[in-house]
């Protein structure tokens, strides 16, 4: 098939783009977890912040991805052309599912369990690390899974601003009306999303209680 021949001829380039794509998604998801999980935990401790924070994350989510990339370009530190800007945008998109699921996962812990824990003399941090997070992990992972799958798709657009990744093939294919090129980028991206969904689904089920 044409596609297989294409991959044969361009193996190194294709792997390079796949690697770039994985870096874009991996780095942004990781950052989103590092920011989003503590933020979600904070929301369970400060209920007054819940509305504004979740509302803000929701607004970010509704911004069309190409538009967000465009907005970020002129910014002094976070912007410019390339992978860094793309990662910033991808982090923004990953935040809502992760923050919200962390909040829901932790606040969904049985109140009796929480009361018993506090009543027995657990500090807030012990309650969080020994009870709330372990019990909420399943839901938190569901959020990570959604963020990752969305990230794989959104990362294809990053090629428009010079960030590389599988989107390069797609854009090249679109500008030259070359279906093989388009598929060369779109197919692995779709597969990547499916694999990520499956793997993280396994992890999620293992932790779900």
């Amino acid at each position: 098939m044409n596609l297989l021949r294409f991959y044969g001829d361009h193996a190194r380039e294709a792997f390079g783009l796949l690697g770039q794509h994985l870096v874009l998604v991996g780095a942004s998801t990781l950052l989103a977890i590092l920011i989003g999980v503590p933020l979600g935990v904070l929301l369970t401790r400060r209920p007054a912040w819940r509305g504004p924070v979740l509302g803000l994350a929701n607004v970010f989510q509704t911004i069309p991805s190409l538009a967000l990339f465009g907005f970020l370009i002129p910014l002094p530190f976070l912007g410019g052309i390339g992978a860094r800007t793309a990662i910033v945008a991808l982090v923004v998109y990953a935040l809502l599912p992760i923050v919200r699921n962390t909040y829901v996962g932790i606040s969904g812990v049985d109140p009796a369990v929480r009361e018993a824990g506090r009543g027995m003399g657990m500090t807030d941090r012990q309650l969080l690390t020994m009870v709330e997070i372990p019990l909420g992990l399943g839901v938190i992972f569901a959020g990570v899974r959604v963020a990752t799958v969305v990230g794989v798709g959104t990362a294809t657009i990053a090629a428009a601003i010079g960030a590389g990744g599988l989107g390069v093939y797609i854009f090249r294919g679109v500008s030259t009306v070359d279906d093989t090129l388009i598929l060369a980028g779109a197919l692995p991206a779709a597969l990547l999303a499916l694999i990520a969904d499956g793997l993280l689904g396994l992890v999620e089920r293992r932790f779900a209680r």
Partner: protein
Amino acid sequence: MRVGLLSALGLALMGGGCSHRERVVVGAKNFTESDFLAELLAQQIERRTGLPVERRLHLGGTYVCHEAITSGKIDLYVEYTGTAYTEILKHPPMADADSVYRVDSLEYAKTLGLTWGRPLGFNNTFAITVRRADAEKYGLRTISDVARIAPQLRAGFGYEFLQRADGFGGLARAYGLRFAAPPTAMDLGLTYRALAQGNVDLIAGNSTDGTIQALDLVALEDDRHYFPPYDAAPVMRTELVTRHPEVVRALAELAGKLSAAEMRRLNLAADVEHRDIAALAREWLAKNLP
């Protein structure tokens, strides 16, 4: 009386049924100059022939527009002779402007059912562009000059330039260009910003772009004449030409009237001063073809 009524009805039905074909559809590629030229053509057709014209601007790259015209989704658009020659007809690049135009006309008419109109008067070739500071620092005037220091530079190009036979691949071979890393691929519109901001050091812009002047950039001379000529001219569906020869006559008025300097000024007005291209086209027509 009855015959009159019937023929009137018949004409009305025919008119109603064919009304969508009486409309002329003008397409454009996805950059300002192409949009402007499409608008220019559209207004010229409207004012000279009274035919309704629909604009489909900013469609996509060369291949997208070619798809659109061969499949009948648009009736005409402005193409560049060299681009048609190397990208559509797949010939190796050639330098003689007249020969390129002749071959384009003949083969388009014969194999694609498309007719070339008269060139508008300017050549918009690829402009290999660097920042003025770098041009002065390294003494860069021609592309051969930049080939000397290419390993120290980062290049950035749009997707079409990277893919085309008369694009980066051929250029690199013709001049022995070897950059530090493979060029970064990005949306064509972003390449000027990337160059100005220092994300890249060399791009392939267009010689009639207004931004070159506005951003204090320098276009290098193609000393080895690698790029073929890119004369802008309307390409029309032969069907349209046959049915509406008045369209061809109207567009022929534009032949040779638009210089490269003029085009550059118009691009500057549209891109940098953010002026409305429909207004610019109206002004230009009022002044040059009253």
